């Protein structure tokens, strides 16, 4: 296993070479900018260099191959105007090959800082103007938004991989997709369509600010995706899934062993999904029973519950109403005075946390404000404990920053995001959890979520639903989904398995404009009660 920090000789490492240049030259640039711009109080710079190689195949034929090297930067400037008004401005730029030239890169950073500064000044000026025109009480909450202490951490963290994405043979990636896709197509005429895609990527980021932070982190990502449509005897099934690791292509070429997040090799993963989709298409659609029933949900299905019903509402920006116009609020926080902190939200068997320090698709050691990432306990024995936060929201909540502010790319502003967010395991054998059920349903594999505004209610569809009769798994159904009020579902959990698995989530969207982020979610087998939806 090698660890890459992209320290190859200048000239051969392309835009990656700019990271080392900025680690040395960036801090003085930021300090000089703040010194020479009246009112500027703080500046930070994030820069990233990336290399991505992708391939895809459809119905057994090559569909696409792509190789891209990119570089981008994001700067934030804070400045003060008259009357105590403080404004922030942000500039994000994809600089690409500009990063090959130190002079041009420095000029781009200066221009970005100037743009952000201008924006910060306009913002502060307009804030001050509004403060003059409305009663002081209306501006109290703005005045209370205190100073946020910046990070001054310094660190260097390499990427982990055996096979450097930059030297991966493109034909190997393409062949892997083509062969898997061809084998799915050959499964039978029921397979109406299939697509297999693979990606191998290296990213190297640096975070610098005028408080002295200087953090370099590199990441390797490898990801396989499969999408299958099957139609049989009037039935139809559309399934997709992803495998992914923060490793090189070695984790897709063969089965990958990992305690929390193992995956089959790309070929086996894709063909198994093809077989399953074909089988499910031939199954009857679920006719949902009346009322609540016992449901046993598997780790893959629970990954989406952890994502939608724990992870998103645990984002402090959402809880503090900053996302009210977009992705909604949080069922964990009505107001600073009336909320679920320290109160039961589920069964005593229920534990949930986010932990970016674990291996998983959402792994990192520092967030994009330079705060060390650490485990955050959300639910402890059924009692709600706390939120993922940024430095600003931590100050509002009176909590320690826990390193959860992250952007999908350097040109975006950081938002509060999940990392590896999951239900913790219990002590039960999943087979025993099923065997104890007289009549119920075993719900496997997540598909599509729909959640209420504060995530207090959800409907999540499953890839497969099986009947359980007298402790045994029976008939298979397609088009099944679980419908429940979140607190009621969590409170009814009466068994938790010992089979925790993390699942790669490749495309979590949040923000304006939308930022698409990779992370992992998961859990063990759970047993609860819910209504079922059918097709």
């Amino acid at each position, binding site marked *: 296993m090698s660890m890459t920090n992209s320290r190859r000789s200048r000239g051969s490492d392309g835009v990656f070479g700019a990271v080392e240049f900025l680690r040395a030259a960036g801090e003085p640039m930021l300090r000089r900018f703040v010194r020479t711009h009246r009112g500027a109080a703080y500046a930070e710079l994030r820069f990233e260099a990336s290399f991505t190689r992708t*391939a895809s195949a459809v119905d057994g*034929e090559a*569909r696409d*191959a*792509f*190789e*891209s090297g990119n*570089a*981008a930067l994001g700067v934030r400037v804070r400045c003060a105007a008259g009357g105590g008004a403080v404004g*922030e*401005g*942000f*500039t994000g*730029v994809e*600089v*690409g*090959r500009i990063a090959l030239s130190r002079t041009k890169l420095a000029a781009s950073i200066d221009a970005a800082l100037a*743009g952000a500064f201008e*924006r910060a000044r*306009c*913002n502060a000026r*307009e804030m001050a*103007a*509004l403060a003059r025109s*409305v009663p002081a009480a209306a501006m109290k*909450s703005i005045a*209370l938004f205190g100073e946020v202490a910046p990070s001054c951490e310094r660190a260097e963290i390499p990427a982990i991989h055996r096979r450097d994405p930059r030297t991966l043979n*493109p034909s190997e990636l393409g062949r892997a997709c083509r062969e898997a896709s061809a084998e799915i197509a050959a499964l039978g005429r029921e397979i109406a*369509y299939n*697509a297999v895609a693979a990606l191998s990527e290296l990213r190297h980021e640096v975070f610098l600010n005028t408080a002295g932070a200087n953090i370099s982190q590199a990441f390797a990502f490898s990801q396989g995706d499969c999408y299958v*449509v099957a*139609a049989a005897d009037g039935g*139809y*099934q*559309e399934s997709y899934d992803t495998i992914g690791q923060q490793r090189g292509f070695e984790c897709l070429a063969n089965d990958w062993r990992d305690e929390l997040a193992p995956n089959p090799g790309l070929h086996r993963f894709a063909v198994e999904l093809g077989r399953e989709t074909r089988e499910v298409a031939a199954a009857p659609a679920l006719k949902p029973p009346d009322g609540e029933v016992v449901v046993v949900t598997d780790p893959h299905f629970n990954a989406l519950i952890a994502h939608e019903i724990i992870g998103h509402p645990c984002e402090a920006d959402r809880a*503090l*109403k*900053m*996302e*009210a*116009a977009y992705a*909604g609020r949080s069922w964990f926080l*009505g107001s*600073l005075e009336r909320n679920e902190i320290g*109160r039961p939200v589920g069964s005593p068997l229920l534990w949930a946390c986010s932990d970016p320090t674990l291996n998983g698709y959402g792994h990192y050691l520092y967030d994009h404000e330079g705060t060390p990432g650490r485990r955050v306990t959300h639910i402890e024995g059924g009692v709600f404990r706390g939120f993922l936060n940024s430095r600003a929201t931590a100050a509002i909540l009176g909590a320690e920053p826990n390193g959860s502010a992250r952007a999908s790319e350097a040109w975006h502003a950081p938002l509060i995001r999940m990392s590896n967010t999951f239900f913790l395991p219990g002590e039960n054998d999943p087979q025993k959890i099923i065997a104890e059920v007289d009549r119920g349903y075993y719900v496997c594999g997540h598909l*599509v*979520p*729909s959640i*209420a*505004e504060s995530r207090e*209610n959800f*409907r999540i569809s499953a890839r497969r639903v099986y009947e359980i009769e007298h402790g045994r798994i029976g008939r298979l159904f397609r*088009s099944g*989904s679980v*419908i429940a009020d979140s607190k009621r579902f969590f409170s009814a959990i009466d068994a938790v398995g010992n089979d925790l698995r993390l699942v790669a989530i490749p495309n979590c*969207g949040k923000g*304006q*404009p*939308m930022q698409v982020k990779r992370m992992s979610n998961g859990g063990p087998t759970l047993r609860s009660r819910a209504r079922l*939806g059918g097709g």
Partner: protein
Amino acid sequence: MRTTADMRGFVREACAMLARQRDLAGFDVYASSSEHRVARINYTSDIPARGVEEFKSLDADGFAIRIAMAHDPHATGNAAIAGDMTIGAVREALERARRAVIVDPHFPGLPRGPKRLRTIPASAEKSRLMGAKDEILAAAAWRIVGGALAAFRARMKLAMPRPGLVIGGDLSLIRDRIAIGGSNFDDVRNDESARFASSVTALVEALNAKGSATAMGVTLEELNRAGARLGREALIRALALRHGERPRHGTFRVVMGPQPIAEILNYMVVPSLTASAFQAANSAYQGRFGELVMDERISLADDPGAPAGSIHRTITCEGLPAERTELVRHGRLCGLLANTYDAHRLLADERRAEKLGAGAPAEPAFPPHSAYRMGESSARRFDGHPGAAATNLLMTAGAGVSDAELIRAVGDGIYVGRVWYTYPINGQRAGDFTCTISGDSYVIRGGRLAAPLAPNHFRINANISEIFSNPIGIARRPRPAMVWGSPEAYIVPPVAIDKLALSAIASAESD
């Protein structure tokens, strides 16, 4: 942003360089320069907030090349370069594209169309929005906050210690320029667009009140007007909807307003109206091309030149003329959104007859009028593939009635003004969807809007056929509606439905 002249000059040079490569049978060059400026509105009365934050600009310039190889008509490669529009960058892109060459037996060659296109100059008003500076955006965003605060003060004479007033949303300005040349064109063609979009939500949590207001436009004048009215409008609407009723779950007669119709079209219908969906066998209208798929009163079209639309495009990202596509005419499925590849792939598919169905014409055609390289910010981007996307989606109704007549026709029921998180719960093809009613909604009694409906009280579980196949009535007047995160604009009328199942959501609040 780069100027049109710079980009045209670069594309011309790049084309000249690629034309000298002996191993290429053809090529195209696509350059884009885009900018997205956003002021996020975030005011909370009881929680410290910045008022306007994440005031930001996101800039992306770059180009992509696609090459077709001389040695094999099915061999093609592509590559993209960010930030650098020089001949050195074209050389690097060419090397990457050669490394990325695949043999795709379905590759139909590069897009073909008119050898020359007339360039339509931008209007002066559009140009003013193209040049709008940060201070205009900052002033408009803070005016939205100020407007809401003034309206709240004027209407809530009694001071509330903790009203839970939230004013959220954003004001976004999206600008892009593109230039395209290639071996199949004699000229370099270009296009540019500038538009703004703003969505504002006001909540007064102590009153369980929620209202929203949105605006889209293409002129500076419209942007300034939006800044002056949106905060006030959202707040007034929220107060009018306070303490909404919470009816028992059941099956209701319902009017779906423009936003819910736009959201259902966006997530459930438009993805099914592409050539690639039929090819992938995942359209909700699979095997029903040429058949009646909606009520005969309904017609749907995509029009990149619609005067009422906020998205104006003259060429596609394949360099072809951007044109109106009729999708559903009087209820009958008659067209699909397509790019060159997807249109060819579907027409050449050995299972085409099965995929389109018996109602399809013997020689169907899917003109590639809808190929766009879209980024996350809905500006055009250099590094995406040209996929099929709509621009201004227009829904019109024959025998439409007034909004008041529509509500009267329902008698007793629910007016759904806003839905949220609408997804194809059992896959696109099944047409089943679920979402929640998130605000701006009413209880209808005696043919009138009688009382507000509590936000987030009902979940809808339905199929698209229940919405579009046999409505009680459709309003005469379509109006603009926004869908968060969507690159398309919608201009749609409200629709009244006879039976819709609504299930109740439990309150999230602590006991």
